[in-house]
């Protein structure tokens, strides 16, 4: 689905992404882990078009999408969530969800006047969809609350909810589970699995919770210092010496044994 080739990005003197190449396979839930500063979020930002890479290529479904802006990637079916939740403060949770479908509405200045009925129907459909999503994520009770007033966890759910509003091909999740309680985390995991199996969404997620990763992700990609360290199933990765070293420092793996 997504194939990254030889990607570089630096900020000042920091080489955040240092020549990484990897594949995100269609239909799978790929996990991306690595110690802090490994360049995971930068890689996500590059894939999502937040900024262009210094060098290298990003292919989406065989098409070169390096340097495209987020709104162009949206129309190609790529969605993302943010590590620190983003929301439209001045809109309610429901409106936040409905906003995702805004550009899919067929509306012109003229039809806004004259075909209000058709538009109204379109909007009702979207409103019902939003209702469904909120029900699913258990945030219906805050539907009419301004999104800026929601709790951190609810904002996280809203982030995930946005990706459920439209039919995306691939969704990249940046620490969707961070700051969410255990029960909710399980539900989020269920939601992701369901979307993956029933709707065929491809996922790639950054996560620190190894249990969460082990449950959902196969394969797991490990990054360190802007490079690909290793790739494999969660079990393989967990017992890989290089991975333990990257997290805990050199010599740590021998100490553990």
């Amino acid at each position, binding site marked *: 689905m997504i194939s990254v080739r030889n990607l570089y990005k630096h900020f000042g003197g920091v080489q955040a992404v240092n020549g990484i190449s990897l594949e995100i396979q269609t239909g799978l839930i790929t996990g991306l882990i690595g110690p802090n500063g490994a360049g995971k979020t930068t890689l996500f930002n590059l894939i*999502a078009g*937040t900024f262009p890479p210094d060098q290298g290529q990003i292919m989406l479904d065989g098409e070169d999408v390096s340097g495209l*802006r*987020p*709104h162009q990637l*949206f*129309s190609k079916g790529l*969605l*993302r969530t*943010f590590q620190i939740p*983003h*929301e*439209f*403060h*001045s*809109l309610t949770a429901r409106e936040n969800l409905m*906003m*995702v479908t*805004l*550009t*899919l*509405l067929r*509306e012109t*200045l003229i039809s*806004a006047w004259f075909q209000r009925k058709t538009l109204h129907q379109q909007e009702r459909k979207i409103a019902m969809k939003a209702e469904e999503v909120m029900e699913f994520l258990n945030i219906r009770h805050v539907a009419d609350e301004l999104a800026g007033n929601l709790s951190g966890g609810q904002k996280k759910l809203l982030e995930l909810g*946005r990706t459920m509003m439209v039919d995306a091909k691939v969704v990249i999740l940046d620490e969707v589970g961070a700051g969410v309680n255990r029960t909710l985390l399980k539900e989020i995991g269920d939601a992701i699995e369901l979307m993956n199996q029933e709707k065929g969404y491809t996922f790639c997620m950054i996560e620190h919770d190894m249990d969460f990763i082990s449950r959902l992700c196969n394969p797991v990609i490990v990054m360190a210092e802007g490079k690909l360290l290793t790739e494999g199933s969660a079990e393989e990765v967990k017992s890989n010496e290089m991975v333990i070293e990257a997290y805990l420092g050199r010599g740590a793996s021998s100490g553990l044994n």
Partner: protein
Amino acid sequence: MDFLNAIVLLSNYVLIPSLVYGSQLALGALGVTIVFGIMRFANFAHGEMMSFATVSTIFITWWFQSIGLTAGILPTALLALPFGILITGLLVWATERSVFSYYRQRKSKPVIFVIASVGVMFMLNGVVRLFIGTDEIIFMDGLKFLIKAGEFKKWSGLNEGLALKQTQVLTVLLAILAVAWLFWFLQKTKMGKAMRAFSDNEDLALLSGIDPEKVVRATWFISAVLITLAGVLYGLDKSYKPLIYFHLLLPIFAAAIVGGIGQPLGAILGGYIVAFSEVAATYAFKKFLRYLGPEGWSPEDLVQLLSTEYKFAVSFLILVLVLLIRPTGLFKGRVL
């Protein structure tokens, strides 16, 4: 009778003029606020763009008059207005392409945009005077007064006359129409919603597939409409003087900031607050108080807070006070 005289006097010299002036400021402040809400910079060229818009409308008006096209009792400038909007739209778009888009691509800080807009301001200031000269121009034609002071006196039997100019009524009517349309646009249309989303959270708006270039284009166009309306209505109501729009920048910015910059409703309210304060602070209340006071009594001085030469000081004072006491303005937030 004295009470009615006082009311008429106040309406004629304070209430109506400030309502009209307030509408003109509100249109100007709306333009500033919309651009700020989307692009996050205060456009200092706004006043000169108003000047340019008025000049292009004046040229079209003259051309219409020369071929004998007039609007009867309505001012010819009203016919020229759509063309003025179009020309201003082109100018604003040219500035966007040649100046602002460059800085946007480089993701420059807002202060860079502000300074660039100051540059645009000085340039336009020169260009406009190059074409139209420095003289005062009155381009109002058609029926001047809807109600004349003398006729009103005769009709009502009061000492005080009430005059109502056509431009005053036109200003208020067009301002109401423009504001109603703008609010409908922002609340109901797809592009309006996209603009509000963009203003609220740019990153998220992009993630919802909203094309930033389209949003920017729509914003400049709306700003061009508001610029032309504000400029032409002000010029029609008073007269066109090249530097007057440069001076108007202060009350317009004061209005936008009083209301909370980025807030359309605030800009409108701010426009009226600034206008009322300015007119009231420079009006001599002597006669008004004489009517209200006991028979034969009269205040000793003019009861005027500031002489009219200092009217811009009022905007300045309001600006300073708001920034000191409530920097966010009346309505909080920087979201459309």
